[in-house]
């Protein structure tokens, strides 16, 4: 029998251990290939002017990093699992070199197979992904996917590098082991030691304390030390998480077990006892999985929230579809006419409303306002609520003699300000204190004119106008022309007309739809990349937990046999095992979720709208996929327990 025959036989025999690894490998190849294809795809490059290509390149490197780590880690687990087999080969007289060759050949065949299948599948699905991407970024033209040789080559090179890396790993593993050690490797496992009372208790509580402190600080980061705060939050939560897995949980288990005084029960024996036994070895991987889960979740929830709220956020910054205008001269009115006439020609119906705006100087003077952050003096655009209603904007009307405050650019700072507060309106001669009863989200006029806007009711507006505006101050009055497109489907068409128009007249190009499309592109790309990286990450961590549990199940097979001989049914034993799995999968997930919730909360100033819904959806999907791995694991245990007797 040649070495090759041996390889084929051992692969056929081990296929049940391999299939998940094989799928994970294929999956990595597919995703990497898709990313590489999109990176080089002319349509993508053209559509985004190169930025998308760069984004995919960066994501590809990140993906590579995740996939590489995963493959090396999984490989290490498999090497340990197969140590007896490797020992047996050596016992019957194969040299270490031959064993290494055998393993490397096997690994190469497996990886090459995964690569071939992965690239093949990648070619089929990359079109699907391209369509998905284009849908996400809001592009709906005809898409043709070109076959990219560069992508194939790039994928092959990358995965050959990974194969070399794992081969090296096997070589080192075979060289470094002794025959005796190989036979015992599967039995190795640490034995729980009695924790040193004071030190453990201190570290255990410190772990919880650090996490709590990190959470607490994450809600209070907004000051001059923002950057340092962020680092401190990261450091404390990560250290806290490590201590939690390394010390706190073992310590709690130890206390719990001590209190049982030997009456641990079957469930405890199968969950607490085995977990304690392996906690030391698992602390590192559980910490990494938890921290990375938190990061992935935060990234996913964040980018999904951005994507989800794009329309709302853009609308709140650009309440009017188009807006022309200025102070003093009447030039803009003519231009607006040109634009609307063009709209008429194209058969696009619209609502045209001139809005009068009074520009005054404003001043914060109360303690509670954000005078620490914002300049005390600012320019105010006073707007009459009545005209806004006419322009088709649905707004809340402030009570008489009070005003609502609008300014999208400082909303994130202002939204925590206590209302009511007062601002002073001035011109060189007069001044008037106006009570602000609400800080509203977004703008009421389009950028770039918006600035700080105060909305008042009609009566109050006329009163202020009478008080402040005389002939000298007439330059403070301006008119903005709002154009709202009646039919949503004609937005794109109108937008094109507008862009041509601004180019011709050499005007700034600011309008709702244009902003919406470009934000959509950016957030769509973000969610695409975050989603796929998240998926890869999820599948790798899920698989690693699965592999680890698979190994543990095999190691504990003898215990299950004993338990069944002692008269415990499969169901009795599974109850204990399920408890253990709830812990193994649940704790990293729950802590990861908690971390990410606080991370998103800390970053929520980036969002104007409420992101509870999109963040919850992203997290729910994550949990669901995780659950599948937990179920697979429990299934493997059930099989092991059933076969034990």
């Amino acid at each position, binding site marked *: 029998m040649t070495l090759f025959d041996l390889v084929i036989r051992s692969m056929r025999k081990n296929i049940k251990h391999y299939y998940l690894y094989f799928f994970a490998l294929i999956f990595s190849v597919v995703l990497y290939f898709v990313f590489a294809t999109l990176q080089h795809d002319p349509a993508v490059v053209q559509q985004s002017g190169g930025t998308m290509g760069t984004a995919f390149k960066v994501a590809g490197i990140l993906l590579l990093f995740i996939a590489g780590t995963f493959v090396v880690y999984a490989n290490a687990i498999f090497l340990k699992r197969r140590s007896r087999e490797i020992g047996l080969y050596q016992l019957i007289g194969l040299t270490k070199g031959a064993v290494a060759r055998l393993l490397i050949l096997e690994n190469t065949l497996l990886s090459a197979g995964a690569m071939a299948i992965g690239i093949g599948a990648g070619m089929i699905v990359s079109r699907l992904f391209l369509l998905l991407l284009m849908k996400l970024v809001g592009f709906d033209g005809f898409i043709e996917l070109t076959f990219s040789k560069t992508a194939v080559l790039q994928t092959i090179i990358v995965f050959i590098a990974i194969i070399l890396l794992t081969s090296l790993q096997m070589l080192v593993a075979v060289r470094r082991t002794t025959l005796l050690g190989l036979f015992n490797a599967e039995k190795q496992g640490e*034995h729980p030691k009695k924790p040193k009372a004071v030190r453990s208790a201190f570290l255990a509580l410190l772990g919880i304390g650090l996490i709590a402190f990190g959470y607490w600080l994450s809600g209070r980061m907004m000051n001059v030390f923002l950057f340092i705060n962020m680092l401190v939050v990261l450091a404390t939560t990560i250290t806290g998480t490590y201590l939690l897995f390394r010390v706190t949980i073992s310590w709690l288990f130890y206390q719990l077990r001590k209190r049982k005084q*030997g009456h641990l029960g079957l469930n405890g*024996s199968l969950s607490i*006892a085995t977990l304690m036994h392996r906690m030391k070895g698992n602390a590192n991987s559980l910490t990494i999985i938890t921290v990375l889960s938190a990061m992935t979740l935060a990234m996913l929830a964040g980018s999904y929230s951005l994507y989800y709220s794009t329309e709302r956020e853009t609308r709140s910054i650009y309440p009017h579809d188009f807006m022309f205008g200025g102070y003093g001269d009447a030039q803009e009115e003519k231009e607006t006419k040109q634009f609307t006439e063009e709209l008429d020609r194209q058969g696009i119906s619209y609502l045209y409303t001139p809005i009068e705006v009074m520009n005054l100087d404003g001043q914060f003077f109360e303690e509670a306002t954000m005078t620490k952050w914002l300049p005390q003096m600012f320019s105010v655009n006073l707007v009459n609520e009545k005209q806004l209603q006419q322009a088709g904007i649905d707004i809340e009307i402030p009570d008489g003699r009070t005003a609502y405050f609008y300014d999208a650019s400082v909303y994130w700072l202002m939204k925590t300000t206590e209302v009511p507060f007062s601002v002073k309106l001035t011109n060189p001669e007069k001044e008037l204190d106006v009570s602000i009863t609400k800080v509203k989200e977004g703008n009421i006029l389009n950028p770039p004119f918006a600035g700080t806007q105060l909305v008042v009711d009609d009566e109050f507006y006329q009163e202020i106008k009478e008080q402040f505006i005389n002939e000298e101050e007439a330059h403070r009055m301006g008119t903005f022309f709002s154009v709202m497109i009646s039919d949503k489907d004609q937005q794109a068409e109108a937008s094109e007309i507008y862009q041509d128009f601004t180019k011709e007249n050499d005007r700034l190009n600011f309008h709702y739809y244009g902003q919406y499309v470009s934000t959509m592109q950016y957030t769509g790309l973000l969610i695409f990349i975050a989603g796929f990286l998240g998926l890869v990450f999820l599948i790798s961590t899920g698989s690693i937990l699965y592999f680890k549990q698979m190994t543990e199940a095999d190691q504990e097979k003898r215990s299950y046999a004993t*338990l069944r*001989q002692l*008269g*415990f*049914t499969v169901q009795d034993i599974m109850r204990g095992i399920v408890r253990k799995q709830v812990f193994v999968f649940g704790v990293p997930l729950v802590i990861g979720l908690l971390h990410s919730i606080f991370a998103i909360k800390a970053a929520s100033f980036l969002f104007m709208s409420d992101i509870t819904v999109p963040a919850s959806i992203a997290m729910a999907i994550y949990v669901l996929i995780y659950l599948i791995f937990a179920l697979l694991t429990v299934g493997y245990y059930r099989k092991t327990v059933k076969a034990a*007797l």
Partner: protein
Amino acid sequence: MEQNTVLHAQNVRKSFGTRGNVQEVLRGIDLRVLKGEFVGIMGPSGAGKTTLLNVLATIDRTTEGSILIGNADISRMKDRELSAFRRDKLGFIFQDYNLLDTLTVKENILLPVSLGKMHKRVAEDHFKSIADILGIKELANKYPHEISGGQKQRTSAARALINKPSLVFADEPTGALDSKSASSLLGTLEDVNKQRGVTIMMVTHDPVASSYCSRVVFLKDGKIYSELYRGDKTRQAFFQEILKVQGVLGGDSVDTL
């Protein structure tokens, strides 16, 4: 059925393999074990000792025949009932101890009563008295890897006795022990048998071990070959008798090999 019969096997047969390649390991065994007996089962390799033990201990099923333990016909029970039966009525001692590495001595011993039918205080009392008899009270909080083989087997024995079983099965309990630990363990088992009236059935190939029994059953080719009762004989004399029978048996098996 007599009041003091603990186990009654009638015409027990067991075959392995599929059609065309059937190997009959047990070929019609009739055996009656009375309460308080310490029965040893001996025989050459391949005689069916372990198969018989597995079948009697409800771990494996018979192909034919009936087995009554107490008044229960275990050959008619479903798997789930068998599990419950094993847990409540039987005790096991294995050659390689089969202790759970992750549990302390005490936790291992209390495992069979862990599904909660026994009150915690009662279980604690049982544990104390059994650990006392077996001399492992001091080891309660140690893990299996911290104690010797003899101590492990005592732990295993304690686990077998914790639920006051009507019958204890021991499969080569001294197989992995040095002679001193072995005789010490067997002496303890004998004490437990005599003082507490626990019925024990032990499979062994060691004539020294079986000389502690009150009766030794010899198997050969799946059938009962002969039986020896110790009666009032000394252990030494009983040992000599066992050796004689084993010589006859062993000689045959060498010839047939």
